[in-house]
């Protein structure tokens, strides 16, 4: 266990390091923020001067080493655009992102998995058709559209929910739905398929033969067996919900790191982007380690094979 954890940790660090390096290089290839910072009438010399002041004229590897040096002291640098520590900027957005991601995950898992179970066990009923329609809608409406439609319907027309805002529960509802809808569909479909796969197996018949109802067999045995692909998806979706929220956050003026990320990329605020990437890769690696652990908890064969 300890060895496995240590191995994973080292691999994770290498992976995160890889991410940082790739992003660093590509970001720097794509230009620097000087042009965006200067007033439009700045002269070429002025731009060069500011660039030099900000240190973007140095060779990329010097900047990279510099960055790493800072990183070694847990110094993530100061945003050239906002002139505050990059880590602070990102940190201030984390709570919002956590809220939104949890909300969306709740929608996705809370609705997706039960829907999948129902769709698998009630094949052919009207309930299955209704759920299918919902699932397909979730998969085929772009978030920028669903977001604004939600706002117009529930915010402007019905006035049930605030049109934008952040931090409180009511304003979390619509963004969570908009963001979670797609994942919800994915969960529902994956759950459905996995369960259908399992229902054909002999142990289901054996379970019923010992006097369990079909639903008892489903809940006690089938779900567990069907869990692996669903867990895989869950791990993928968590990372997705963190970084994939750009559009939802933009539409609902939700100040999460997705919005920050796109703004920082667009303003070439390198250090902020780096912190975000660091954070996302950390979370991603953690969830995938977690997923591996959960695989092992769910499936003793995987557990023993390690």
């Amino acid at each position, binding site marked *: 266990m300890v060895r496995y954890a240590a191995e994973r940790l080292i691999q994770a660090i290498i*992976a995160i390091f890889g*991410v940082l390096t790739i992003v660093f290089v590509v970001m720097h290839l794509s230009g620097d923020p000087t042009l965006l910072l200067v007033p439009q009438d700045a002269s070429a010399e002025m731009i060069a001067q500011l660039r030099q002041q900000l240190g973007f004229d140095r060779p990329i590897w010097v900047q990279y080493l510099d960055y790493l040096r800072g990183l070694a002291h847990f110094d993530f640098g100061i945003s050239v655009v906002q002139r505050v520590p990059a880590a602070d900027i990102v940190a201030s957005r984390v709570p919002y992102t956590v809220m939104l991601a949890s909300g969306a995950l709740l929608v996705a898992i809370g609705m997706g998995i039960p829907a999948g179970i129902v769709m698998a066990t009630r094949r052919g009923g009207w309930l299955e058709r209704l759920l299918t329609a919902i699932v397909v809608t979730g*998969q*085929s409406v772009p978030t920028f559209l669903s977001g604004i439609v939600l706002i117009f319907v529930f915010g402007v027309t019905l006035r049930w929910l605030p049109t934008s805002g952040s931090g409180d529960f009511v304003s979390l509802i619509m963004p969570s739905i908009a963001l979670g809808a797609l994942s919800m569909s994915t969960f529902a479909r994956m759950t459905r398929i996995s369960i259908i796969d399992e229902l*054909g197996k002999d142990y289901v018949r054996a379970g019923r033969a010992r006097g369990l109802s079909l639903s008892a067999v489903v809940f006690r045995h089938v779900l567990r067996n069907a869990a692996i692909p669903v867990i895989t*998806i869950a791990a993928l979706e968590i990372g997705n919900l963190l970084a994939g929220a750009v559009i939802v956050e933009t539409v609902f003026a939700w100040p999460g790191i997705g919005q920050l990320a796109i703004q920082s990329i667009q303003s070439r605020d390198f250090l902020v982007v780096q912190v975000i990437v660091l954070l996302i*890769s950390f979370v991603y690696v953690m969830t*995938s380690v977690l997923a591996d652990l959960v695989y092992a908890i769910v499936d003793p064969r995987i557990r023993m094979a390690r």
Partner: protein
Amino acid sequence: MNTATFAIRQRIRRVPLSVIVVSTLLLVIVLLAILAPWIAPADPAKQNLLARLKPPGFELRGITYWLGTDDLGRDLLSRTLYGAGVSLSVAILSVVVSTLLGVTLGMVAGWFRGKIEVIIMRLVDIMMSIPAILLAVLTVAVLGPGFLKLVLVLGLTRWPRYTRVAYAQTLQVANLPFIKASELAGAGAARILFHHILPNIAGPVLIVTTAEFGLMILMEAGLSFLGLGIQPPAASWGSIMSVGRQYLERAWWIVAFPGACLFLLVFSVNVLGDWLRDQLDPRSRSR
């Protein structure tokens, strides 16, 4: 007779009505997309600033705009028809790229384990932790916009999902006795992966693929929303919708028609995907 013919024989049995319906639908969509240049009533790029945001059925100088016009007075029907081709090819190409890459890597990682597993799975971690949007923006920044680059970005950002799914499923399937049996029969890794593991992990993979298919169209739409998708005057359903969202109140038809098409497409792909999956699973097929 080889394995393939053994397997393919009897494949098409009783095809349910729903599958026939959606296949027809899909075929129609694809045909419309391909035939767009011949059947579209107007040039999709032809603007008429005097006829902006006109509702379906609007007529001007003998031309009928069956689905209305957009904010530059272009014929929405023609744009939707042409947009189908763009959306479909983006989705198909990127799904194909990411499936091929992702599933192969996932199976290889799950089957060989060891070093190669670590390398592939960490690569997956790396790719997954770089937000897709960042990669998209940066790619456009470095390489410039364009259709192939779009496909490249989408394909490159999405393959790790297939890898994770294929990997997890492979781990499970690889322990089953029939895999060992085939190893004993002398089957090499390639054969085991593609003849035995692949069909047995195809269910979940197909789910991802069909889900991703719609998602790719949505991702392209998202990039269009951010101004980084297909370059105008070419249009995709996504870009039409991202324009239309500004005019939800004034001109609902702009989003409505491509939206409906997208719904039908995603629905058809899902139904077809599920059916295909069932075809791959002989147990549920003979039901």
